[in-house]
């Protein structure tokens, strides 16, 4: 939470002011972002809309407590995070606990029967591994990550987003998803196997090519927008 607050403090645009805007404009200002945030974590449009509604109504009731330490949107996302976790918790409880038969195929598809890599990791250039160069690139990566997460089994994806993207405490994740720490490591492992392979194709190797193309002909092509050449 603090990391995200810091990251967006320097930003301008909607939500950067320290005073809150009219709640009736919240849906227009932040609705899509909040919805996407919830959808990435709940994977269900109906539940995501519900969580956004709950968050906005809670924010409305808590307007007086907004201290202006962070941007309006950061504040709203902070509230939404709690609502998303509530939803996950309820869902796990309603399904009668998360220990359904485990027929995950992630490792089977990643390794041969001799437990060797089916498709060994390919080398990424050091340029491709460097931190994002701009906010635009950060957002493009977030979009690629969302697409790749869709190919990760639900519980592994939830564990990864909560732990790595949101930096939630492991104890809390285990409580919310009602799993043991060992389960959590297994889920994170599966998510990393899938995401690494997917983002290798979608991002890191593609980034290589775009940066190589830029290096090859530095100036003289004002037409192409950065990032558009990616497959």
């Amino acid at each position, binding site marked *: 939470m603090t990391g995200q607050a810091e*990251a967006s403090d320097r930003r301008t645009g909607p939500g950067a002011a320290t005073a809150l805007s009219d709640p009736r404009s919240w*849906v227009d200002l932040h609705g899509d972002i909040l919805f996407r945030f919830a959808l990435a974590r709940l994977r269900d449009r109906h539940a995501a809309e519900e969580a956004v509604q709950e968050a906005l109504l809670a924010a409305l009731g808590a307007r007086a407590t907004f201290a202006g330490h962070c941007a309006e949107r950061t504040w709203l996302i902070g509230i939404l995070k709690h609502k998303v976790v509530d939803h996950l918790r309820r869902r796990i409880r309603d399904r009668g606990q998360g220990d359904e038969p485990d027929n995950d195929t992630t490792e089977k598809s990643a390794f041969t029967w001799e437990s060797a890599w089916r498709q060994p990791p390919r080398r990424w250039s050091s340029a491709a591994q460097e931190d994002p160069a701009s906010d635009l690139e950060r957002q493009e990566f*977030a979009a690629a990550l969302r697409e790749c997460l869709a190919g990760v089994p639900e519980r592994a994806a939830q564990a990864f987003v909560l732990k790595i993207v949101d930096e939630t405490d492991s104890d809390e994740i285990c409580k919310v998803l009602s799993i043991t720490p060992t389960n959590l490591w297994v889920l994170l492992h599966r998510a990393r196997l899938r995401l690494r392979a997917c983002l290798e194709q979608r991002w890191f190797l593609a980034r290589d090519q775009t940066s190589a193309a830029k290096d090859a002909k530095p100036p003289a092509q004002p037409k192409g927008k950065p990032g558009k050449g990616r497959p």
Partner: protein
Amino acid sequence: MILFSCKDASRTMSAQRDRPLSFFERVSLTGHLLVCAACRLYRRQIAVLDRWCRGAGAAEEASAASINEKTTDGLTPESRERLRLSIAKAAGDTQP
């Protein structure tokens, strides 16, 4: 000493990012990494992956208010209307 396969090694390298390894895990992993370039790459790459993903939540916050190009990702017009109504109603109730 147990010989680690790439499958064992990948599990252990992921676990290492979240908890300390046992003595045997450490020894077996070190042994495997000495002879396996693919797993050495894997270890470096999941570190890069985690680092990039950590910033992805903040990137979501910063992106423009509405996503015009990718409408499948955002609210449907109906959802938007429902939300608008419920906020307006609640806001009206709390304001004199």
